[in-house]
Every structure is written in structure tokens, then in C-alpha cells.
């Protein structure tokens, strides 16, 4: 992340102040503010921007909490930009640049790469205090490498402090051998409580028993105490008197003794000691003087008795040389025997070898047998060549039969293999068959389609009632046009309408007719309404009667039947006259009624007219209806005629319209089905053609031409496998033929090679004869034998040469021995004539022994001389001491008032006796004063003297016994009372024990808390140390390398290097190295400033190490250079400038001179200075 701009909108002393940090790749940005300009506020603002403004902040003195705002433009490593404004508050404190809409914190965190506030402050911030603390840690931690690497990698400058605190915190809680630590103390308290609890708890005993026992004991005790008082007082008095008696006797004795030493001088303390010491010293001095004298005379005698060794000592060098040489002489003598033996052995062996080769030659003549080097080499080469040729011939002879056998084998396999049949025709047919395969597939699908279509047609046909018609005929059928159907439809419709109208009218007329009939019936039933016809009929009947009467009157014959007929027309009339009268009445009555009931008559007449009209109408309608129906039947017949060609029975035109549509679909489908059938046949013909071609070819090859139900694809498959099998057979044959040819070639070449080798062998034989001739060997000798002879010869000449060398050494030894003997003789004759005749080695030894003796003598003489000098000094010292002591003794005699020192002991004794007696008298007087209980001594003495001493002892004894008895009684009672009291006091139902148990629980509660905290601290320590070590192992290399470089530059070359080393305990530590590697500086030896710089170097190295792997974060530097001198400050700024290539560096400072330094020393492309206030 990079901060492009920091907007101090309202915080601390700032109002709308922007710091533009966008310049540079990342850039070293120095933010300079003199004191009071708000540098610290700006620094805080930067952190608060990213992580929120804390509840309590010192930056709200100008702007109130609610108005505080810090803004920024940020850019992530991925190039995204974000502009934010931070306000102070409790939630949603992050806003967009408009200061209105909130931004999720996660959006900002996206820019922070998981670096939280603490980590940012620690890892990406460094201030002066960190630097000092880090430097201090380096020195105090002794350069502990792990801690330094960890601090560099985390920015934690207080690592040592953390570890110490963890330890201290744990130590305050617990130490294995401690007492005062919280846990130790709690455990101790628990232990105490446990025992107190045990004491406080009471066993269940009977309260009454204790109570009773207590009361009895208390009463008894009162009596016993009284008795005891009386006896005690008596005893005291007697005891004092008894004690006074011996005191008085001793006093008398002392007074007597004092009289005897009344005049003695009182000598001071230590007088006797001083005297004894002086006398002792005197005696010591005398003795020393005497010893010195005696020693002196002895020494002088010893010196006189010693010989003079000068002559031998003069020749010491020669003697020692001989003695040293003696050793090598003796060794040479011993070697000589071994050398002679060896030489003789070699000569004997040489002779033996020679004899085995040539018996005729002596050892001296052996030289004739020596073979020259080239000849020997020639023989060896030929030997090796023979081996090669022989091997080749042998392998050739083995190979020839092998090849022959393999050829026979291949031929056998070849003849066993069947001859392949020709398949070219079959393959051609197969190609055709394969081409036809898709046709077969197509045939299948066309057939299926055809089948489906036919089925659909059958169904439609059945539905349309055309089952009798074949599909082929369908197409030919003449179906009526739709228009025809419509005409018929209209016609039928109009006919139908007419018929239904007629039927309706007929029905209505019939109803009217029947209604008219009903009403006529009603009129009739109401009372027969006479009609004109009735009157006419009645008048007619009357006329007929009148005729009869008239005839009778006229006496015409009137048949009885006529009469009878007339009479019967009037029931109740017995005679003609009566009947005639009745007929007159009736006609009159009718005429009257007709007149009277004229309305009713009219109604009836109308009804009757209506009835007649309706009846007529019905008749007419019936005719019309019949005509309509006939017309309809004709239309129907015509309609049926239309459909006859289709032999379909037509239903209504409307239905037939649908039918026609279905019919047309059917016709289409049928034609489609027919088309498919044709296709099917064509395809089938093609497929069959291909199949039969294959069949013909198969027959030609005597394979079955067709297998039952074999499809074309099945046959093609079968043919393919036949073709493949035949071709496989062909390939196998070819393979075997190739193999046979190869073996035949091999055989031929093997035979010719064998011939060549045999020629070679013959040539070799000639060369070999030439070569072995000098060895005296026959031409047919084998190379092995020739080599053995050459070996023997070599051994022979080796042995002879070695024997020669040995002989030369033996001669040398002989010469040396003689020279040595001569030198011994010469020396012996010079210093010890008695040795001249002795053998040289003995003489040399004796000379050496004598020389040693002479040297000892010389050393003894010197010692004796030194001792006699010392004895003389001692004698003089003793004399001086003796004189001093004599003077001291004289003074002491005067003090004691005596003449001689021998009298001093007596004077001392008397003085001491007087002193002692006086002291004892004082003591006895004091004792008497005590015993007398304050009475004056003399007075008490006379009182005691008056009492008989013999009786007292008895009285005292008796009293004592008595008191002892009473006391024992009392003590028992006291104990009993105490016991009972204690028991009872604990049996009051109190809660002492319970309270203790509660306290124990409280201690346990605290203990649990402390123990857990202790566990946390211990685990933390362990884990932190593990992490330190692990991080060191991982990152030590890269961090140290960078730190070393930085440190060297920041110290301006004062140090060349820092590197890992080990302290005396073997722990890895960091040390500085001076230029040239001459001087190693442990961190304790660095100045505070240098240690600070070392910490800075490590921190920068750690940061760079982090940046290798992670996205950059701005590095905030707070005035760390104030204690650096100018050159080191410049170097440190340069380091920051370099870091700024990887991440933005923001350097806050109060110091003008640092800014100036930066401006003069740092590349301006990297450096950007911003002023505050």
C-alpha cells in the first residue's frame, strides 16, 4: 500500500492541511515540522486514519470530537485507489470522500494486507525510543542472536523485556524451592489450615462427663493450694539457714589466709606470661648459636674429604660423544648378524633357481641367461595374441553348428504355416459392402417410417369408414369440393327451417282447433245453445207430425210405424197428438230460446265457424309439410349421391366438412407411405446387390456364402475378419523368411572369419619360434610355460642384486666399528690409563660412569660452601637476641621487688594468692546478704550461729517430701482442669472448624487462578523461545547478510561486518567485526550509539526480508537520527532512501539540520520534503 495524500482536515492543530505523498516510485518523504508545528499530531493522524481514532485522544483541543476528520488517498500494491475520510465515533467511522456515505472497514483492510494496528505500529514504525530500547536490548542481551533476528523480523524491540517479565511474573507466582511466592505461600497456608482444622474438629464425646470432671477438679484444687502454701513457707526459712552454715565456715578460712599474704606486691595481669616468654626466647637463642657452631665445623671437614674432578670434567664433551655413539655401535653389531644371514639365504635361493633352469651353469655364469627387455616384451605380446586368436577360433567353431540348427528350426516353422489365400477380390467386394453399410442403416430407418405411416393411415381409414378402400385407391377417389358441401349445408338448413316453421304453425293451429273444440264443448255443456239448424229440424219434425195429423184428419192412412217413429221422437208422448203438441212446444221453445239466447247463439256460431276454418288450415298445413318433407328427402338422396363415389355414408354437411379435412390428411399420409415403400425397395435392392457380391466372393473362397439372418453389416464384419486372418498369415510367413535369411548370412560370415583366424594362427607360430629361441625353449612351447621361465629368471636376478646390496652394507659396518675403537683408546689413555687395555665398549661405558661421578662431586662441593656461609650469619643473629632479653629481665625484677630473675616466680605466686582470697571474701559476703533476706551480714551471722545445724537437715527433708506430694496432686488437678476446659470450650456448637474449612476453599479458589496464570506464563515462555529459535534458523542468513552491509555503511566503515559467533557457553551471539577482520567486538563492547545503529541495521534488514515476500506497507520513521553524528545520520538517511525503492518511507522530524543533510546527500529523484506549519 502507498499513501498518496494525507488530508489533515480537522485534527490536532490542523485545519484542511494536505500532505501530498504521491511523488516518487515509493519515495522517502521527510515531513518536517519545528516544535509545536504538530509533527506528533500528524504522525498520530496517520495511524488513526488507518485504524480509527481512539476514545481518548490528545488531538481534540481545537476541533471538537464530532468535527474531527482525517482523510487520505491510498493506493494498493495492485494499483487500486481508495479515498477515505475517518471521523471520530463509535461505529461506521470510515466514509467516502464526500464525508457522507459510509465505507465498510473491510474495504480498507483490503489495503492493509492483514496488518493490524499493533503490528503496524511495531513492524512498520520506528521511533527514537524504539531505537534506544533496541540498542539497550542488544547490549543487555549479550547479542543473543535468536532474539536479535526475531526482533529484526518483528520490530519488537522489547523482546528481552518480554522474556524477563514472563519469567518474573512466573517467579512471583511459583518457585520449586520458594516460600513467599503466591502459589508456594498458598500451599503453605493450606497445610497450616489443614492441621488447624484437624485440631479444631472435635470427636463426639459426652459433654456432661467433661463438665462434671471439671467441677470436681476445681474444688479439689482449692484445698490442695492452701496446704502447699504453708509447707512452702516453712521450708524456705530452714533452707536459708542450712545454706548459710557452710558459707560462714568458708568465710572464716578466707580471713585467715589473707593474713599470710598481707604484704605481697600486686603484679599486673600477664606478668608471669611475659617472664616465661622472655626466658624461653633466651634459651632458643642460645641453642641456635650452638647449632650454628657445630654445623660449621662439620661442613669444613666434608669439603676436605672430596676428590678433585677437574681432569675428567675437561674431557666431558669427548666422553659423552663416545657414549652416545656406543648405542649405534651396538645396534650395528646386532644388525650385522641378521644381514649376513639374509645375504646367504638369497644366494642359496638363486642357486636353486638356476639349477632348476640350467644344471650346467654356475651362479657366476648365470648372467648369460639374462633376457633383454624388448625380447621379454615381445614374448608377452605374442602370448597375449595367441590367447586372442585361440579364443576367436574356438568361438567360431561353436557358432557354426548353432546357426545351422536355427536355420533348420525356422524352415520347420515355415513349412508348418498354411499358405495364405488370395483376398483381393474379397477386399474389392468388401469395399463395396462397406460403402453400402450406411444404405442399410438408412433402409432400416425408412422402413420404420413407412411402417409408422401405414399404421397411422390404417387408423385414420378406419375412423373415416374407408376400410374397404386400399391406400393406392385413396388417391384416386373423387372427393366433393368444400363449396358443394357448403351449398348442401345451406340447402339443408333452409329446408329444416321451413319444416320446423310449418310444424310449429301446424302445432299452433292444432292447439287453436282443440281450444275452439273445448270452448264449444264448454258452451254446449253450459246449456245446449239451440242453433238455427235445431230450430229448422224441430220445425221439420213438427211439419212431419203435422202431416201425419193432417193425414189423419184427412183420414188418410197413416201407418202405425210412421206414427210410432214420430211418437218415439218425443219420449213421454203417448199419442200422436201429444207428440205433435210436444213438437210444437219444442219448436216454439227453440224459437223462443233462439231469440232469448241470441248472443250465445252468435258465440256458438262464431266458434263453429272458427272450428271449420282451423280444420281447413290444419289440412293445408299438413299438405305443405308433406311437400317440405318430400323436398328434404330428395335433397338427402342428392347429398348421398354426392358421396357415393367415396362409398361413404355421409353425415351432416358440417360433420362431413371435418371428415373431408381428415380424408385429405389421410390421402397425403398415404401418398407419403407409398413414397417410403418405393424408397425401401430401392435401398433394399442396393443392399442386396452388395451382399450378394460378397456372397459370391465368399463362395469362391469356399466359405459359406450366407449365414442365416445375416445382415449386410454382419457379413461385412465376417469378411473383414477373414481378410485380417489371411493377411496376418502372410505377414507371419514373411517374418519367418526374413529370419531364415538373417541366420544364413550369419553362418556364412562365421565360416569366413574362422578361416581367417586359422591363417593368423599359422603366422603367429612362426613369430613365436623366433621369440623363444633366446630362452633356449622349443618352438612348440606354450606361452604360459615361456612366461613361467621368464618369471623364474626375473626372480633369480632380483635375488642376486639384493645379495649384492647387503654385502655393501656389511662392509660399511666393519669400517665404523674400527674407527670407534681407535677413538676410545685415545681418550682412555689421556684421562684413565687403567682403562686402555679394556675392550672399547666397556671402556667407553666406564668413562661415562666416571664423568657422572665427577659432576656429582662438583655439585656437592658447591652446596657445602653455601651452607657454611649461612651458619655464620645465624651465629651473629643469636648473639644480638640474647643481649636484648637480658635487659628485659632486669626491668621485671625491679617491678617485682626482687634481685634475680630466678626469684620472680615466688613473687608472682604471692600476688596471685592475695588477689584470689580478696575476691572470694566479697562473694561469700554477698551470699550471706542474700540468705539473710536483707539482714546485715554480721547480724545474720550471729543469728545463724545460734541454731543447731544438726537438726535442720532432717526437718528440711520431711518438709520437701510433703511439698512434693502436694504439688503432684495439684499438677494433676491442673491438667485435668485444662483438659476438660479445652474439650468443653470446643463443644459449644461453634463454627470455628467450619470457618477454617471455608478459608481453605477460598485459598483453593485463589490457587486455581494463580496456577492457571502460572501455566500460561510458562507455556508462553517456552513457545516464545521455540519461535525465536525457529525464526533464527530460517531467517538468520538473509537478515544477517543485509544487516551486515547496512551496519557497515551506517557506521561509515567503523565496522566491516556483523556475524554470528558463539559465546563461551556455546550460545549463538552476534558480534561486530572491525575493518580487515582484525578485531572482533562483542556487543557489550559497543557504545550505546553503535548499538542503536546496529539495531537500526537489523530492523531495516528485517523489514527488507519481509518485503521480499509481502506487499509493501508505508514505513513510518519518527526522528530516530537525533543522536547520530552528521556522517552516520547521512548514511542512515541513505539507507532509508534505498528502502524507499521497495516501500514508501515517511520520516517525521523536528530537526532542520536533518532536512538539510538529506537535501544535500540524497538523490532528489527519491527525496521529497514536506513542511508542517
Amino acid at each position: 500500500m502507498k499513501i498518496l495524500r494525507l488530508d489533515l482536515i480537522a485534527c490536532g492543530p490542523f485545519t484542511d492541511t494536505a500532505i501530498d505523498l504521491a511523488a516518487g516510485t515509493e519515495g522517502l518523504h521527510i515531513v518536517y515540522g519545528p516544535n509545536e508545528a504538530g509533527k506528533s499530531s500528524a504522525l498520530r493522524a496517520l495511524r488513526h486514519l488507518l485504524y480509527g481514532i481512539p476514545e481518548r485522544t490528545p488531538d481534540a483541543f481545537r476541533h471538537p470530537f464530532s468535527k474531527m476528520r482525517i482523510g487520505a488517498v491510498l493506493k494498493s500494491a495492485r494499483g487500486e485507489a481508495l479515498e477515505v475520510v475517518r471521523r471520530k465515533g463509535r461505529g461506521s467511522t470510515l466514509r467516502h470522500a464526500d464525508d457522507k456515505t459510509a465505507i465498510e472497514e473491510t474495504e480498507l483492510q483490503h489495503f492493509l494486507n492483514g496488518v493490524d494496528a499493533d503490528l503496524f505500529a511495531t513492524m512498520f514504525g520506528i521511533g527514537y525510543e524504539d531505537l534506544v530500547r533496541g540498542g539497550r536490548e542488544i547490549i543487555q542481551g549479550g547479542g543473543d542472536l535468536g532474539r536479535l533476528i526475531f526482533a529484526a523480523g518483528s520490530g519488537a524491540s522489547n523482546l528481552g523485556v518480554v522474556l524477563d517479565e514472563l519469567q518474573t511474573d512466573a517467579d512471583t507466582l511459583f518457585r520449586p524451592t520458594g516460600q513467599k511466592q503466591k502459589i508456594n505461600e498458598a500451599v503453605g497456608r493450606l497445610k497450616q489450615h489443614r492441621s488447624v482444622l484437624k485440631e479444631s474438629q472435635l470427636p463426639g464425646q459426652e459433654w456432661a462427663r467433661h463438665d462434671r470432671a471439671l467441677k470436681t477438679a476445681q474444688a479439689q484444687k482449692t484445698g490442695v493450694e492452701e496446704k502447699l502454701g504453708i509447707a512452702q513457707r516453712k521450708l524456705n526459712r530452714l533452707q536459708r539457714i542450712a545454706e548459710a552454715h557452710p558459707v560462714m565456715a568458708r568465710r572464716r578460712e578466707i580471713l585467715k589466709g589473707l593474713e599470710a599474704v598481707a604484704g605481697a606486691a600486686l603484679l599486673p595481669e600477664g606478668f608471669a606470661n611475659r617472664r616465661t616468654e622472655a626466658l624461653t626466647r633466651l634459651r632458643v637463642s642460645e641453642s641456635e648459636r650452638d647449632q650454628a657452631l657445630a654445623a660449621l665445623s662439620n661442613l669444613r671437614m666434608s669439603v676436605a674429604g672430596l676428590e678433585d674432578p677437574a681432569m675428567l670434567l675437561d674431557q666431558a664433551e669427548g666422553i659423552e660423544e663416545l657414549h652416545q655413539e656406543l648405542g649405534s655401535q651396538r645396534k650395528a653389531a646386532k644388525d650385522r648378524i641378521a644381514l649376513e644371514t639374509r645375504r646367504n639365504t638369497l644366494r642359496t635361493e638363486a642357486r636353486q633357481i638356476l639349477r632348476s633352469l640350467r644344471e650346467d651353469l654356475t651362479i657366476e655364469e648365470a648372467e648369460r641367461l639374462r633376457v633383454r627387455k624388448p625380447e621379454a616384451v615381445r614374448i608377452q605380446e605374442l602370448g597375449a595374441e595367441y590367447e586372442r586368436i585361440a579364443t576367436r577360433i574356438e568361438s567360431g567353431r561353436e557358432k557354426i553348428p548353432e546357426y545351422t540348427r536355427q536355420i533348420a528350426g525356422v524352415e520347420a516353422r515355415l513349412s508348418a504355416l498354411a499358405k495364405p489365400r488370395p483376398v483381393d477380390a474379397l477386399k474389392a467386394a468388401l469395399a463395396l459392402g462397406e460403402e453400402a453399410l450406411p444404405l442399410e442403416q438408412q433402409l432400416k430407418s425408412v422402413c420404420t417410417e413407412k411402417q409408422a405411416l401405414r399404421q397411422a393411415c390404417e387408423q385414420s381409414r378406419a375412423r373415416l369408414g374407408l376400410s374397404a378402400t386400399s391406400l393406392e385407391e385413396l388417391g384416386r377417389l373423387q372427393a366433393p369440393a368444400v363449396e358443394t358441401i357448403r351449398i348442401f349445408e345451406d340447402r339443408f338448413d333452409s329446408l329444416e327451417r321451413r319444416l320446423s316453421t310449418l310444424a310449429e304453425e301446424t302445432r299452433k293451429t292444432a292447439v287453436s282447433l282443440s281450444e275452439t273444440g273445448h270452448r264449444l264443448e264448454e258452451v254446449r255443456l253450459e246449456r245446449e245453445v239451440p242453433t238455427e239448424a235445431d230450430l229448422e229440424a224441430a220445425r221439420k219434425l213438427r211439419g212431419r207430425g203435422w202431416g201425419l195429423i193432417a193425414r189423419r184428419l184427412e183420414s188418410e192412412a197413416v201407418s202405425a210405424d210412421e206414427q210410432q217413429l214420430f211418437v218415439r221422437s218425443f219420449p213421454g208422448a203417448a199419442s200422436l197428438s201429444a207428440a205433435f203438441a210436444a213438437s210444437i212446444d219444442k219448436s216454439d221453445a227453440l224459437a223462443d230460446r233462439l231469440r232469448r239466447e241470441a248472443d250465445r247463439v252468435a258465440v256458438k256460431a262464431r266458434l263453429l265457424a272458427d272450428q271449420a276454418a282451423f280444420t281447413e288450415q290444419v289440412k293445408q298445413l299438413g299438405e305443405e309439410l308433406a311437400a317440405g318433407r318430400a323436398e328434404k328427402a330428395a335433397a338427402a338422396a342428392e347429398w348421398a349421391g354426392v358421396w357415393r363415389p367415396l362409398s361413404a355414408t355421409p353425415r351432416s354437411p358440417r360433420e362431413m366438412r371435418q371428415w373431408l379435412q381428415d380424408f385429405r390428411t389421410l390421402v397425403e399420409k398415404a401418398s407419403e407411405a407409398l413414397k417410403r415403400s418405393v424408397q425401401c425397395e430401392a435401398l433394399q435392392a442396393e443392399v442386396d446387390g452388395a451382399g450378394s457380391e460378397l456372397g459370391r466372393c465368399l463362395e469362391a473362397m469356399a466359405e459359406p456364402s450366407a449365414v442365416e439372418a445375416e445382415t449386410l453389416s454382419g457379413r461385412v464384419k465376417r469378411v473383414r475378419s477373414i481378410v485380417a486372418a489371411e493377411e496376418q498369415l502372410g505377414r507371419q510367413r514373411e517374418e519367418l523368411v526374413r529370419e531364415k535369411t538373417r541366420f544364413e548370412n550369419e553362418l556364412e560370415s562365421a565360416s569366413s572369419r574362422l578361416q581367417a583366424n586359422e591363417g593368423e594362427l599359422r603366422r603367429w607360430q612362426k613369430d613365436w619360434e623366433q621369440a623363444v629361441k633366446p630362452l633356449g625353449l622349443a618352438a612348440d612351447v606354450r606361452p604360459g610355460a615361456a612366461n613361467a621361465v621368464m618369471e623364474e629368471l626375473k626372480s633369480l636376478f632380483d635375488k642376486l642384486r639384493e645379495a649384492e646390496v647387503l654385502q655393501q652394507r656389511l662392509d660399511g659396518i666393519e669400517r665404523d666399528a674400527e674407527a670407534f675403537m681407535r677413538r676410545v683408546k685415545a681418550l682412555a689413555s689421556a684421562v684413565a690409563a687403567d682403562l686402555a687395555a679394556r675392550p672399547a665398549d666397556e671402556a667407553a661405558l666406564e668413562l661415562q660412569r666416571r664423568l657422572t661421578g665427577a659432576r656429582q662431586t662438583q655439585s656437592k662441593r658447591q652446596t657445602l660452601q653455601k651452607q657454611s656461609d649461612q651458619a655464620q650469619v645465624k651465629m651473629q643473629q643469636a648473639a644480638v637476641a640474647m643481649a636484648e632479653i637480658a635487659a628485659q629481665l632486669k626491668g621485671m625484677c625491679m617491678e617485682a621487688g626482687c634481685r634475680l630473675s630466678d626469684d620472680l616466680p615466688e613473687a608472682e605466686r604471692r600476688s596471685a594468692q592475695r588477689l584470689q582470697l580478696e575476691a572470694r571474701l566479697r562473694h561469700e559476703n554477698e551470699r550471706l546478704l542474700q540468705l539473710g533476706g536483707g539482714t546485715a551480714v554480721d547480724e545474720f551471722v550471729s543469728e545463724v550461729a545460734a541454731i543447731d545445724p544438726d537438726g535442720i537437715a532432717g526437718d528440711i527433708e520431711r518438709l520437701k517430701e510433703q511439698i512434693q506430694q502436694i504439688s503432684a496432686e495439684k499438677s494433676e488437678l491442673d491438667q485435668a482442669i485444662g483438659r476438660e476446659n479445652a474439650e468443653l470450650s470446643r463443644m459449644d456448637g461453634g463454627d470455628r472448624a467450619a470457618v477454617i474449612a471455608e478459608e481453605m476453599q477460598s485459598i483453593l479458589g485463589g490457587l486455581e487462578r494463580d496456577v492457571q496464570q502460572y501455566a500460561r506464563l510458562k507455556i508462553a515462555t517456552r513457545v516464545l523461545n521455540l519461535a525465536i529459535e525457529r525464526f533464527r534458523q530460517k531467517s538468520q542468513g538473509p537478515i544477517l547478510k543485509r544487516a551486515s552491509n547496512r551496519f557497515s555503511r551506517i557506521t561509515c566503515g567503523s565496522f566491516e561486518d556483523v556475524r554470528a559467533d558463539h559465546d563461551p557457553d556455546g550460545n549463538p551471539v552476534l558480534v561486530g567485526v572491525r575493518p580487515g577482520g582484525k578485531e572482533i567486538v562483542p556487543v557489550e563492547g559497543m557504545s550505546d550509539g553503535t548499538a542503536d545503529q546496529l539495531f537500526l541495521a537489523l530492523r531495516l534488514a528485517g523489514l527488507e526480508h519481509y518485503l521480499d515476500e509481502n506487499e509493501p506497507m508505508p514505513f513510518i520513521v519518527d526522528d530516530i537520527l537525533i543522536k547520530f553524528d552528521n556522517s552516520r545520520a547521512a548514511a542512515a538517511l541513505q539507507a532509508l532512501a534505498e528502502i524507499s525503492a521497495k516501500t514508501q518511507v515517511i520520516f517525521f522530524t523536528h530537526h532542520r539540520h536533518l532536512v538539510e543533510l538529506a537535501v544535500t546527500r540524497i538523490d532528489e529523484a527519491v527525496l521529497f520534503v514536506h513542511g508542517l506549519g
Partner: protein
Amino acid sequence: MFKFIHAADIHLDSPLLKLDAYEGAPVGAIRGATRRAFENLVQTALDEKVAFVLIAGDLYDGDWKDYNTGLYFVSQMGKLREAGIPVFVVAGNHDAASTITKSLRLPENVRLFPADQPATARMKGLDVAVHGQSFGSPAVTTDLSRLYPPAVPGCFNIGLLHTCVNGREGHAPYAPCTLDALRDKGYDYWALGHVHQREVLLENPWVVFAGNTQGRHARETGPKGCMLVSVGGSEPLSLDFRPLDVVRWEVAVIDAGGAGRGYDVVDRFRATLSALLARSPDVLSVARVLIDGETAAHDELQADPERWANEIRSVAVDEGGDHVWVEKVKLRTRPPVAKLAKPDGALGELLSLMDELAADPEALRGLGSELSELEKKLPREFREGTDGWRPDEPGWLAGMLSEVRPMLVQRLLRKRAAE
């Protein structure tokens, strides 16, 4: 119409377990809690003028040897004797183990039922039959109720029994019996003891655990006391729970979810505390405070748990005075998801190492070995019934490690955090 009291599991003089005293804690208020609860029982009996008192076992703690406890009981019973109130007691498993029970001479108004067989007690002028049998040994595993006599006709029959019934979690399975068997006895009321949690098992007949009279540790939460039973007249039997406890154990869960800082959590505790005080105004509440939830204050809290426990306690002292005691503060918070990103560099190494250790039981035991010196010094009492010390268990060690993590990070990064 008469009333009686049914109580059980008094455990006189047994202390409240592992209460860590802190500055300002109401130490005096927890003293002798079981005794004061028992005094409340006696006072209730006197105030309510009950006809008799039933104690269904466990008057004492089994391993408690102080005879004074017995004497104290006798003195309290004396008050009931003066009021003419008889007391019926069966010995429970703890009483059977107690030396006090064996040697204590009880006042004549206290009737302890025999242990060898069930017995029935009657009272003058009251048609009540109390049937009961004591525990003769600390572990009675037979069904004592089986031999209880049949109900006395015309009487109100009470069964006094110390039992686990058909098993209750956290309680030894002593004198097991079935509810069917109890029902079949034909009694009117079964006064049960042994289970410390109050419970009405049946209403016809009444089968009731009165619970203990005073909670003694963090798992015995809520009000504790006795049953005041009213019988007779035309009314049906009525059951009235009377709290007697003087110290009440509570669990106060603080949801720290969304809290920004440690002090926000403390403020939330303040609110929870007032609710708790309002709920139990008359007794001392001993609260275990559980802080839970996903919060940005996680690191701050975990970095110094002791400090925040003290903050919480100080609020308790301020607001609750003598009415509340914070027993323990347990942190179970989680960091917000966004904060889980792990930094790189040395600190990342430390965090990765901790993750690795936490997943490796062997390595965890290795950490546990750091505590072996301490382990040797810890006394027997400490190990009894503690879940705060398991240095040989990887799970416990992993928990410790998760607490160590923020503490360590905070100590390492302790820099201008507050600026």
C-alpha cells in the same frame, strides 16, 4: 387443616467451594451460609406454625468430623421443641458416613428413623402417619421403599425417603426405586431427598424433591430452600416453595458480540448485573461470568484476562456492594473473522508455531512438562473436582495455548497501541 415443611440435603457446615476472595469481595456475607440457611428453615417453621418438619436426609457432610456441627443442630432443634414442633429425620448417605450422627444425642422432639427396617411415626391429635427408614451405610443400593408399610387408613400418609429414584445425573445411584412403586403404596405425599435440584415428580400422589437448602458450588444455581405443604380442609393440597438460601449461585452470560473495546464489555456486564440484582435483591448472588461472542475486543481481553476479571469485579463491588460476588470470569470470545489474517515475518512464525503445537498432542504434552515442578507441589485438595488443572491432557493444554496466544502477541506488540 395443617401445614408441614419438607426439606432435605442441608449439609451443615459444608463450605462453598473454591470461592476466590478478591479486594472488596463480600467475604463476611458468605460465611456460614449453610447454617444461616438452616436458621431460615427453623424460622420459617416457627413463623408458619407448622405441625411438623420433615428432613429427607443429608443433614451433614459425610467426611465432616466436627462435633460442634451436631451441637449446633441440637441447639436449633431446641427452638422447635419450645414451639412444640416435632421433626422427622431419615439419615441419608452422607449422614450414614458421618461420625456425628453416631454420637449425637437428639432432643426428644426429633425422631430419627431406624436404619434396619422402615418405621411409622404418629402424632397426638393429628391424623398423619410418617413412614421412613434411614441409610445404615453410606452406599445403600437396594430399594428401601419396597418394604415401607402400607398406608394407614384414615390418615394423611407421608413417605420420607432418601433416594435417587430411577437415577439422576450427578447423583450417586442410592436406594433406587420407581415412581410406579411409590404410587402403588397409596401414600399422599412422598418427601424425597438426595437430589439437590428441586423437582415435582408426580402430583397424584405428590412425589417431591425439595432440593438442597443452600447451593454450594457453581453448578447448583438458582434459589434453594424447602417446600411448605398445606393439607386438609376443603382445599386440595398446596405446595409452596420457600427460598432459604443466603448465597445464590448464578451464571451471568455476557454477549460481547460486536463490542469494540474491553470497556464496552464491562459496560454490558453492568447492565446484566443490574438485572441480576433486581431478580434476587435479598440474597448474596455468586455469579460466574461467561463472556461470549465475536468481538473486536477479543485480543484486548485475552491479552490480560486477570485485568479484565478485576474490572468486572470492580463493577460488581461498585454496583452490587455486598449483594454480589463474582466467582470467576471466563472468556470465551472469538476474534472477528476479518482479524484472522496471519501476519508474516517473525510474528507469523510465532503464530504458525502455536497452530502447529495446538494440533500435535505430543508437542502439547511437551509443553505440559514445563509444569511438572508445580504439579509436584500441589496439594490433594486442589486436585479434587477441579477442571482448571489438567496438565497431562492435550485438550486442556491447547486451551491454555489459545489463551497464551493473544497474551504473548500483546506483550510483544506493546507499543503506542493507545496513541
